């Protein structure tokens, strides 16, 4: 006879694990975005003042001012780094919750086994 409390605790634990996985995936995406943006930033900084920079917006290439492009890329990098910090904090919090939940599940499992043990007298 399944203990409903145990079943619920297991569900919550599984949900937390899925959240952790989704968070880890987001983290990977952010890492690759940070890398790419850093490379673009470096390239833009290497350019001469009179260089011609274009940004692709949809199917069109729009000429951009070099300084403006550099600023935009810097701002974008800061934004992504902020997102990254958020994601890392979330990971720490989720991990703590998951550990707690796992301990609860094990406690309930032990309790259930105990109860089943006393409920079944020797055949």
């Amino acid at each position, binding site marked *: 006879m399944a203990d409903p409390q145990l079943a619920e605790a297991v569900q919550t634990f599984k949900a937390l694990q899925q959240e952790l996985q989704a968070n880890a995936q987001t983290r990977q995406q952010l890492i690759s975005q940070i890398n790419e943006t850093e490379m673009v930033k470096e390239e833009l900084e290497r350019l001469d003042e009179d260089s011609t920079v274009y940004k692709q917006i949809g199917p069109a*290439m729009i000429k951009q001012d070099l300084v403006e492009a550099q600023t935009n890329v810097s701002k974008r990098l800061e934004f992504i780094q902020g997102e990254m910090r958020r994601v890392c904090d979330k990971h720490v919090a989720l991990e703590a919750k998951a550990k707690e939940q796992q301990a609860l599940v094990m406690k309930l499992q032990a309790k259930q086994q105990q109860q089943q043990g006393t409920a079944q007298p020797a055949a």
Partner: protein
Amino acid sequence: MAAQPQQEAVNIATLGPQQLNVLREQLSQEVDDLADSHATLGRLALRSSSAARAVETLGESKKDQAVLLPLTQSLYVKGKVADTERVMVNIGTDYYVEMTIEKAADYCRRRTTFLQQQQQGVQKAAQERQKALNQVTNVLQQKIRALQSSQPSSSGGVS
């Protein structure tokens, strides 16, 4: 590649066969993923170095020289070289820069070097993982053999 932020150093001799198996599969997956990364980086580095050569060749050609432009992988059209001085370079995140041939070739070469360095880093990591995988596999096999020898085989049956 599922990377764990911290990996506690665990003495694999203390782990049971089931845990060892889980670890073994995890390491195996990591080795495969690293091999994929290594191959991808190699392809990209090759593309970069081809681009450098292509740009240099363009620079050496003359204006209005006849060229064949690919429309698809098997369909080409005749064209003429328009500009042997400047090219448009994709530097990432939808940004393009008009560069001289020299600067563009330099960009390509720098990118090639960067990708090759990344590739070497990945190779090192892959070798380390493979070593760890071998160790775990050995210990696992030892433990399995130990378990089998301590339990008389049940297929023996009474004749």
